[in-house]
């Protein structure tokens, strides 16, 4: 670019980019300056941005992710779900023995790691009884494995000791390390390493022993060398001894070769375990279809089950279907939430508009004084205000007492103003009213009073002057107030909970219930995601119809 560095270049005379004082092309130098400005602007807002990302966006994203996440089934029952994929669920027959064997292995490992009850609670959301089924099975699997353990140990006490197992299964290098390792030394335990020859001739035993070793060394932090193996290892050992590779056992020459051969000879005559029957003994539900259908339906890593549940549907053999009528609740709640939020918004407009008008048209000093009255409730705790409404509205409360005293209402037919929709609407209108008045007031303040006077002097009646001149100018304030009130009320929770009874509660009350009480966070997340989508949808519609530019929070 030799021609562009020539400082005597006169811009425009030669074709070429315009240059800045330092000789770089103007475009680039401008871009650089702008980029620097942008960076410093970004740096300025960085603390806020990071704060919002960490405390607001990330938790919400994480929570929304839970509405489809379903890894627990596959993670807890990896072997079972893998085999179950080939199971023909429409045959009407429960799976065969191999699945039950995989189930035994999965549940055995899960109960050692205390994960089986967690899976039980998860599946209980879909199938009643899963919770206790898994709890019971966790207690029962030990007995299944003991059958082989006892036989091996009765045959030769050699198989009782963890040391002997480690001598056979561990590699020579690892054995040397672990024998010199002391827990008190504070050093990390040398991680278990399988003897190569054993991994070939006893593949299942080796695989499960590796899991046992990882668990013992990393989660239990106890010395693997001294630890007696799980019952599960004995059943895997039996499978290896009687399996396809059994012939090669005699080729083994390492430690314990004699015992191994002896075990192989004896295992042929061992009493075997019928895994299917054993699980049937633990709980006959294992021999019925529902639990298997449920495990299969919920074995993928992601599920739409929570979302289906959130719209009163459920999975079935023929795809999603509506729940039975006596279990449908969420559609009602969503509609009710929208309906009541609309009513609350409208009553806020009705009550707030005159107040805003008075505030805007009074002398500043009086207006400020009245403003304090509007803001006063803001400074009072939400709970106090709601509880105060309880005292006001209940049947033996202030309002009813006054009405009875005035003779408007008979003493035995006092009005039900609380624990129903009326209560929620009254209390929430009061609580959200400032959010309507403030934008109305600030917009109305900017409407010059001379416009009204001009309209009147041109012959308009009071009503026409208001409706044709004043009102259109105050619409942006109504828009802003309505958006605030509507979106706030759609997610309200405490007030409906306290004064809403059964007919005045919102969807947010159910979300709160699933978050803090039933612990079904997936369902809560799905409900929350739907609510979020509804709000965004309404906002979009509002923008299309009214135009978001027409919303003003102030002059």
């Amino acid at each position: 670019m030799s021609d562009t560095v020539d400082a005597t270049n006169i811009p425009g005379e030669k074709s070429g980019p315009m240059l800045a004082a330092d000789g770089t092309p103007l475009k680039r130098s401008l871009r650089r300056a702008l980029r620097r400005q942008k960076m410093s602007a970004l740096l300025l807002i960085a603390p806020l941005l990071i704060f919002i990302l960490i405390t607001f966006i990330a938790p919400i994203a994480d929570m929304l992710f839970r509405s489809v996440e379903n890894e627990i089934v596959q993670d807890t029952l990896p072997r079972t779900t893998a085999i179950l994929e080939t199971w023909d669920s429409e045959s009407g027959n429960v799976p065969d023995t191999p699945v039950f064997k995989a189930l035994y292995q999965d549940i055995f490992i899960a109960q050692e790691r205390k994960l089986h009850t967690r899976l039980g609670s998860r599946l209980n959301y879909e199938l009643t009884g899963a919770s206790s089924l898994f709890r019971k099975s966790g207690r029962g699997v030990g007995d299944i494995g003991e059958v082989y353990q006892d036989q091996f140990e009765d045959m030769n006490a050699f198989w009782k000791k963890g040391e002997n197992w480690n001598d056979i299964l561990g590699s020579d290098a690892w054995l040397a390390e672990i024998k010199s390792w002391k827990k008190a030394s504070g050093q990390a335990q040398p991680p278990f390493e399988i003897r190569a020859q054993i991994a070939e001739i006893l593949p299942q035993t080796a695989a499960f022993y590796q899991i046992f070793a990882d668990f013992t060394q990393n989660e239990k932090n106890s010395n693997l060398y001294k630890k007696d193996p799980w019952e599960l290892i004995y059943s895997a050992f039996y499978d290896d001894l009687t399996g396809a590779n059994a012939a090669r056992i005699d080729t083994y020459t390492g430690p314990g070769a004699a015992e191994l051969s002896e075990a192989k000879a004896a295992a042929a005559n061992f009493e075997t375990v019928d895994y299917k029957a054993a699980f049937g003994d633990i709980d006959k539900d294992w021999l019925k279809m529902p639990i298997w259908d449920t495990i299969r339906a919920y074995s993928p890593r992601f599920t739409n089950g929570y979302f289906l549940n959130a719209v009163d549907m459920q999975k079935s053999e023929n795809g999603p279907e509506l729940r039975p009528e006596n279990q449908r609740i969420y559609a009602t709640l969503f509609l009710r939430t929208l309906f009541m939020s609309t009513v609350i918004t409208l009553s806020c407009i009705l009550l707030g508009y005159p107040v805003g008008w008075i505030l805007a048209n009074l002398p500043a000093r009086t207006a400020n004084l009245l403003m304090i009255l509007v803001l006063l409730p803001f400074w009072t705790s939400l709970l106090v205000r709601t509880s105060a409404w309880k005292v006001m509205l209940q049947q033996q409360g202030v309002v009813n007492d006054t009405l009875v005293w005035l003779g408007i209402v008979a003493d035995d037919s006092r009005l039900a103003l609380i624990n129903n929709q009326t209560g929620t609407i009254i209390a929430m209108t009061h609580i959200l009213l400032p959010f309507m008045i403030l934008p109305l007031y600030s917009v109305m303040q900017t409407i010059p009073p001379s416009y009204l006077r001009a309209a009147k002097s041109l012959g308009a009646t009071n009503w026409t002057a208001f409706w044709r001149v004043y009102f259109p100018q105050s619409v942006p304030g109504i828009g802003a107030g309505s958006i605030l009130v509507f979106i706030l009320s759609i997610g309200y929770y405490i007030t409906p909970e306290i004064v809403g009874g059964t007919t005045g509660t919102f969807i947010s009350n159910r979300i709160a219930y699933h978050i803090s009480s039933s612990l079904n966070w997936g369902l809560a997340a799905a409900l929350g995601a739907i609510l979020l989508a509804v709000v965004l949808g309404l906002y979009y519609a509002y923008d299309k119809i009214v135009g978001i530019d027409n919303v003003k929070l102030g002059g």
Partner: protein
Amino acid sequence: MKFTTTLLATSALIGAGTFALADAHGNMANEMTLVSWGGAYQASQDKAYLQPYLKNNPGVTGVWDESSNEAVAKLRAMNEAGNITWDLVDVVAADAIRLCDEGLAMEIDADELLAAAPDGTPASEDFGDLLVSDCFIPQIVYSTTFGYRTDMVGDTPPRKICDVFDLEAYPGKRALEKRPINNMEWALLCDGVPKDEVYDVLATPEGQEKALAKLDTIKDSVIWWSAGADTPQLLADGEVVMGSTYNGRLFSVIEEQKQPVAMLWDAQVFDLDGWIIPAGLPADRLARVKDFVKFATDTQRLADQSQYISYGPARLSSAPMVGKHADLGIDMAPHMPTDPKNAANTFLYNYEFWADYRDDIDAKFQAWLAQ
């Protein structure tokens, strides 16, 4: 939205916890955070357990956190964040079972962790059947039962649980808890189901329909409560004729506030409240908490608590030591749910049943409520 506020609160809590813990690890294995229900109940625990313990162990401090009604959710959030800020949590037995199932509570060995009775009976026998979960350390037996306004029931006060369903004899509103547990059982009992068959019937869809149909007969006259303090307030205001709540709350209305309210003990439902130790505590804090629990659940301490609140001690050996109320000076034994006169007809909360059926029946119950 409450949804996001919960999240925000959770993340704020976790954030705050990180700093607190960073502090604690330096030199303060001598600090404990105990979680309880607040109010009179927490005060009774403070007086009977914590203050005497702090007196015996100078240099140790204990802080109360009134979060028990959200303990399950918060413990799960703490566990997922890998940062447990609580040392000991007071929960009802059903929650303890759930926390244990979720792996959020530590499994205990009762005989190793808890003190034996004065006569040497090991803790596992002294607590007996009340050790309903491997993680649960029982403290008190409480009951959910009814109270009624003595001035609103005429000359024939209610004597039987089924009087709650009798709108003709006792017109007026009733307060019931906004959840299926207990209400479904009472409804079936009053629909003629024998006591020992209630849970068998309730396990069937027809039985659930039956219970809801019975509740339907009084639905219009029910105010549903969700906080234990609601019913006492409603009774004191004369808003309801009768209502269910925890017996200790009714004791307070009757004896401490002297309201015209009386107890209807019939078919009271026994339930348990106790401690759990969160899973995954660091060793120094765990050691402190174990020391405290051994002290706070011994025979004398459990008996002491009943001086302040009318809940029965969970140890067999504590029962004979129940004395007088610390301030009122009245005998506490007749106010205990376990007193033979009160316990003539009792109902046992079936934990296993509700662990299985809660999700299902609750969905039906809420749908019924919303109709």
